[in-house]
């Protein structure tokens, strides 16, 4: 029987679409945030009319900004803990860190657009399994549980992927 002959299960179709978009957004924004940092700007304090305050006071404000040079795969505190873990050798961890942000952005985009959905979900699952392994080793049980929820959603998306519609590719 071809796909064309299958009856349309709109509930499952919408469930997959929802999961795909959610997981895609999650991956895309997580990847983008790895290029974010905050900087302190010194700017004039303004009065109610938007003019510089009569005191001439300057204020320090925090501004979030994005740049390639800001790239950080994981927070430094987490990276330090993982670096001390003997079962996570540097020759494996370093390449993983180097590609993590880019892969998440790519996977996020493909899921949102609807290109290579199954492969994208599988790659996303692989990333979260790898992160889970690291968190298990440094005993971050909260983080493991958090990632387990993601893994469950990815698995559900893979099960529902046969109801794939509204995609560029059917895979």
């Amino acid at each position: 029987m071809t796909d064309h002959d299958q009856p349309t299960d709109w509930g499952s179709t919408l469930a997959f679409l929802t999961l795909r978009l959610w997981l895609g957004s999650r991956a895309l924004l997580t990847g983008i945030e790895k290029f974010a940092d905050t900087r302190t700007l010194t700017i004039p304090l303004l009065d109610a009319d938007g003019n510089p305050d009569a005191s001439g006071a300057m204020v320090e404000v925090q501004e979030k900004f994005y740049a390639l040079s800001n790239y950080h795969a994981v927070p430094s505190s987490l990276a330090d803990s993982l670096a001390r873990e003997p079962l996570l050798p540097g020759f494996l961890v370093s390449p993983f860190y180097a590609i993590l942000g880019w892969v998440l952005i790519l996977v996020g985009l493909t899921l949102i657009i609807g290109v290579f959905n199954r492969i994208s979900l599988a790659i996303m699952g692989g990333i979260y399994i790898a992160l889970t392994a690291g968190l298990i080793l440094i005993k971050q049980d909260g983080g493991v549980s958090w990632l387990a929820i993601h893994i469950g959603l990815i698995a559900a998306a893979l099960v529902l992927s046969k109801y794939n519609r509204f995609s560029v590719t059917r895979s």
Partner: protein
Amino acid sequence: MNDPFDHLAAGLDRRRFLQLVSAAGLGLLSSGGLWGAEPSAQTPGSRTPSETFDIAIVGLGAQGRILLEAIQKIPTVRVVAICDIWEYSSTYVQRLLKKSDILVNVYEDHRTMLEKEKTLTAVIVATPDFWHAPVTNDCLSAGLHVYCEKMMSNTLEGARSMVAAMRKSGKLLQIGHQRRSNPRYIVARNRIVRGDAKALGRITAINGQWNRAAGTDFGWPAKATMKPDHLAKYGFKDMHQFRNWRWFKDLGGGPLSDLGAHQIDIYNWFLDAYPTRVMASGGADYYQNHEWFDNAMVIYEYQTADGPVRAFYQVQTTTSAGGGYFEQFMGIDGSLKMSENPKITALYHEAAGKSWDDLLRSNVVVANKAAPAPADTAKVDARETAALASYQIPVVMSKAIHQPHLENFFDSIRGRTKLTCPADEALRSEIAVFKAIEAVETKNPVICKPEDFIV
């Protein structure tokens, strides 16, 4: 009066030459002249008040040196003369300035200085308190603008004479309550406590303190001991009294004057009111060789436009307990713990207080990261108020603590702004300090009538 440094006047031409050369170099760089920008108005050698001008410093003790340090960061004034009765101190400062290629004439007596220095526009006075009025009044009479450290005088009469001299001369007299020019304090007063925001709501209480650990009296190198007749000529009994004048009643005003005056001035300034009654207790409980009390606890009562305010102030010179120095304004919507030290400054919003969203949007305050909620077991009383949201004032104060106040003085001379602490305004505030001292000494409440603050 003999001036042991008169011979330096012979070097005037060389000094002037070096100052002009260095000022010209600075002027060229700061005006952007090398790059063809508009020429600076600060032409070296010119003495019109709108441009670079000459100043002198009288009193080169700890406070005088702090002011000098701040002045050295202001390129639009030239220190051309210094004056101190202690040769040890004036020689030290003279050498210090020489390291920066600043050659100055040195004087022992300010009257000699006024006779000989004809290029001065202003004088900085940082002598012991009992010399403030004579020196300031002489400088004003000589047609000079004056920046005088607080307290204005160790006597109310002395302080009033300074206001009279200021008015008679038509010159400016700035008093060294430097918080009034501190941008952090100005924003706190005008954008948080007062103004349209009145973010703390009605202020009902104030708490402030300046507590210092016990210390030993200042000493002096034996070789630098001044002769008794020299000390007597300038009003000191001996070297110990000269070095520790703040503790003697004929010379200074004690810790309420020395430390408290700054903060009590902030009470009055932030409330825009003066006290109606003061109660106080204090005593010379620890130091045996001091005349002034070494601790005091004061309660002021104010009647403000918004209602009564009670204000506690304590100064302790035998313990640093209680978190240093601050003035905390407590209102129904929030509280502000203000200090010259930004690390001590803290701002809290009452849970039921009116919204501070406008302050946040306009960057007047920024939120601190939320403190973790206390464990239920930490709560000892059901009536305990929940932990308050904490904020900061993000105003940058990157200059030396006295620099903005000095800059305000110099810019006022140039006619670009108005003094933030003119003598008449300062005197009204300092009268509240005199009232507290009176309450300590008489051990009775002192009534402060509105006419007491007319100056």
